């Protein structure tokens, strides 16, 4: 289920001011626990409000794991669907966000696995999937995209989840199903690789 939205262009200034992709309106949370309980009792309106509250962050989690904006959208929808089906198993005393983002991460990892199987059939080996970047005009930015393809999937996810979305090592480990120490080490290696690759790029320009 894909729709070309054309909304991805955003000024960097806005991005830096709102590093987690959250709008100010999304910060004004109603009683989340009450919404969860109501949704568990069958209120679709309550679930819709939970979707509204969490969809930006959910998108950010998915986007860090999958390769394209379209895949992130698919993963977000799958993730919310899984969450809806599993809602009765959620204990309202737990943090809903952490539970939901784990589901989102799993949905994204599933999608990445499916894409890999499909791409192995369709594409010659070694062809990187392009990132969606409609406003791409900057050479260094293009090179950063290329540099990101040199990282492993997990390193890329970890660096985006940590450096862009602000998740802790522990949260990332939980989402990706890896130990916290592994997340920490992946982040270190990812940063080092990007610095090295971009340093090479800069000296080439």
């Amino acid at each position, binding site marked *: *289920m894909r*729709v070309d*939205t054309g*909304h*991805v*262009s*955003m*000024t*960097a*200034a*806005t*991005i*830096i001011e709102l*590093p987690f*992709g959250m*709008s100010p*309106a999304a910060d004004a949370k109603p009683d989340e626990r009450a919404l969860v309980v109501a949704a568990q009792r069958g209120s*679709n309106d309550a*679930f*819709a409000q939970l*979707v*509204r509250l969490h*969809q*930006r962050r959910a*998108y*950010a989690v998915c*986007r*860090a794991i999958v390769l394209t*904006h379209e895949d992130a*959208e698919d993963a*977000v*929808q799958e993730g*919310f*669907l899984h969450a*809806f*089906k599993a809602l009765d198993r959620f204990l309202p005393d737990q943090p809903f966000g952490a539970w939901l983002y784990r589901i989102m991460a799993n949905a994204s990892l599933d999608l990445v696995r499916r894409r890999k199987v499909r791409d192995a059939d369709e594409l010659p080996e070694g062809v990187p999937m392009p*990132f969606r*970047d409609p*406003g*791409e*005009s*900057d050479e*260094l*930015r293009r090179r*950063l*995209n290329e540099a*990101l393809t040199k990282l492993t999937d997990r390193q890329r996810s970890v*660096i*985006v989840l940590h*450096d*862009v979305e602000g998740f802790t090592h522990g949260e990332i480990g939980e989402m990706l199903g890896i130990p916290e120490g592994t997340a920490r080490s992946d982040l270190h290696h990812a*940063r080092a690789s*990007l*610095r090295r690759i*971009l*340093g090479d790029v*800069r000296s080439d320009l």
Partner: protein
Amino acid sequence: MSDIRFGLFPDDDDVVRGLRAIYAAPAGDAYWNELQSRVMARVADVELGWWTELDRWARPALAAAAVLLLSAGVAMFRAHQSEAEIAADAMLSSPAVPVSSAIRPAYQDDQGARLRFLFGR
């Protein structure tokens, strides 16, 4: 959009700025409203499916099956226990035949037969 500026040797801040630009979430409420609508449309599809009913009944059915199994187990155990109790009671509490008469008749019969044989009936 050439707002990403790397130094000669890009440091972490440069990289983070670049990553944020690449991984920027879509802006504008219209996009998020539409995404929310799509999510809720899929949720509604799920709710209309017959499997939802199955899914809804799966847990009560499992619980009922577990209760039935448990009840059957308890009933079988009790039946076994009461049979054993009845057997034990029957053995201990019913001296219907005195021991002497319970053992002797065969012996007496044999003895009588011998005597009848010896003394020519």
